[in-house]
């Protein structure tokens, strides 16, 4: 079997039971892959273990069963090749924005001179549009600016994989939209492999190539893999005009509201953990639209 670039192979996470109770399985037998250069989103409700999955991919946490294989090697800890953008931005508050980025640059290039580090920092600061605030401490920055520093810090180590744990959930809608587009642009330009956890349906549709839908915990499972067939480049301004957008969105929302709970106890008999069914709601709808308009050349008024 051909392995994808990142291959998650049957990982499980259990917490010991409190006072004699049987151990709680957050998730078990989880299989999925991320192709090189792909943007994968994971959607699910709270406490289905989303953050734990990301931490296992980052190497910050360990799986009780199974393994994660990246580029043919099983991971056994954190790596500069897998950068993390934290939900809480996790900037070091005693360093300036530039200092935080320089800390990352020096981690990747310990042999660089002061001037080389400063030059690299300036490049990343410019990329995320923070030139005016480079000398400021995190406490003096707004939430959106802090997360820009977080993004720049993650990119500054030139990772192969970008892991994002609900990076924009603490931001207001306007800032979130801007940052989503910037991440979209940067990931496309750098051809990074990206994995993002989110509970924002529009964010997933805008950014992802594929979307994993997760049932509620405990014993959360990946119920479906949605292939996002909406053409790129996508922008917030016109994505909702693309044919099939609403079918895709409705499919995910339906899942989150109803099926995530219903499926939690009983998966359909044809479902298997190692070959989760793929669906293409947008493509199906787009073909149907095309067929309908071909059948009736005169559009109904």
């Amino acid at each position, binding site marked *: 079997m051909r392995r994808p670039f990142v291959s998650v192979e049957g990982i499980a996470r259990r917490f010991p039971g409190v006072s004699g109770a049987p151990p709680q399985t957050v998730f078990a037998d989880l299989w999925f892959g991320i192709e090189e250069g792909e943007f994968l989103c994971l959607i699910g409700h709270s406490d289905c273990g989303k953050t734990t999955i990301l931490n296992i991919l980052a190497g*910050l946490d360990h799986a009780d069963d199974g393994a994660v294989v990246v580029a043919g090697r099983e991971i056994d800890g954190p790596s500069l090749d897998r950068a993390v953008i*934290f939900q809480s931005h*996790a900037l*070091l508050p005693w360093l300036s924005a530039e200092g935080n980025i320089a800390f*990352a640059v020096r981690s990747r290039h310990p042999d660089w001179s002061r001037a080389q580090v400063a030059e690299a920092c300036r490049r990343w600061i410019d990329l995320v549009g923070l030139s005016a605030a480079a000398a400021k*401490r*995190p406490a003096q920055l707004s939430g959106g600016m802090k997360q820009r520093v977080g993004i720049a810090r993650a990119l500054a180590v030139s990772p192969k994989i970008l892991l994002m744990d609900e990076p924009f959930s603490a931001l207001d809608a306007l800032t979130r939209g801007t940052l989503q587009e910037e991440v979209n642009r940067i990931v496309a330009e750098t051809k990074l492999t990206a994995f993002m956890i989110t509970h924002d349906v529009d964010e997933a549709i805008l950014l992802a190539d594929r979307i994993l839908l997760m049932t509620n915990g405990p014993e959360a499972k990946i119920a479906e893999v949605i292939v996002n067939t909406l053409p790129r480049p996508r922008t917030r301004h016109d994505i909702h005009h693309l044919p099939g957008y609403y079918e895709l969105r409705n499919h995910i929302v339906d899942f989150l509201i109803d099926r995530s709970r219903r499926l939690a106890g009983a998966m359909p008999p044809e479902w298997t953990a190692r070959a989760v069914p793929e669906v293409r709601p947008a493509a199906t709808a787009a073909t149907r639209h095309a067929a309908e308009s071909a059948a009736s050349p005169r559009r109904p008024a």
Partner: protein
Amino acid sequence: MRATRPVASLALACLLLALFVGAWQLSSSTGLGTAAVADPEYAALVGAAAATGGQTPFPSPIEVAARIWEHITDPFYVRGTNDQGIGIQLAYSLARVLAGFTLAALLAIPLGFLIGMSPLLYGALNPFIQVLRPISPLAWMPLALYTIRDSSVSSIFVIFICSVWPMLLNTAFGVATVRKEWLNVARTLECSALRTAFRVILPAAAPTIMTGMRISIGIAWLVIVAAEMLVGGTGIGYFVWNQWNNLSLADIVTAILLIGVIGMVLDQILAMATRAVAYQE
């Protein structure tokens, strides 16, 4: 608290001081003892006040001010082992405090770092720390004198033992409570243990460590006076006790004031250092 004008606070402080000094002056000028007749030879031997059975009157503010002025204008005289300037005595005390405090910091901060990083070590050492910490540092004095056999070094040891605990506990606490996400940042950046310790844990715990150092220096300055009263010889504590034996209350008041001023200066220096490493989250 509402912001007040600093000028108003200063004016009120001056008024309170004037009231206090005025009341002191009034009470010391009225309380004159009866001048009973005493045997002049006995009076020459034990002093006029003792011979009449009266008390040495408490010095008036003007007498104390005159004595303070004498001390401040000539702080470093040496007229024999028992009569040295107050500046010299303070310098002895300060040197002992700084020596004991520095030794304590050199031990407490690295050890606190280890205890904070390792729950195993914390669990193993915590019972000892909890038992040793509440012991009055002066209780160590006999043991110190017996083993060290040098009174000056013994008082440095007493300073060491009293200033080690706040620094040790604060360092351990500061290191143990470094936010997990900052450590995770260091881990994802593949920082070495040493780099994580110096570039992440130390700056994160620095304000807590500095607070421990500030508490320690305060305690050390409190304890040195008592320790020097016990061991004698030199130092501001010995000076106070010597002047009590001389019944020179004006000298004692002078010393008390200077002890307060120097304690405040020490505290402010550490407060400044604390502000320098503070960060806002």
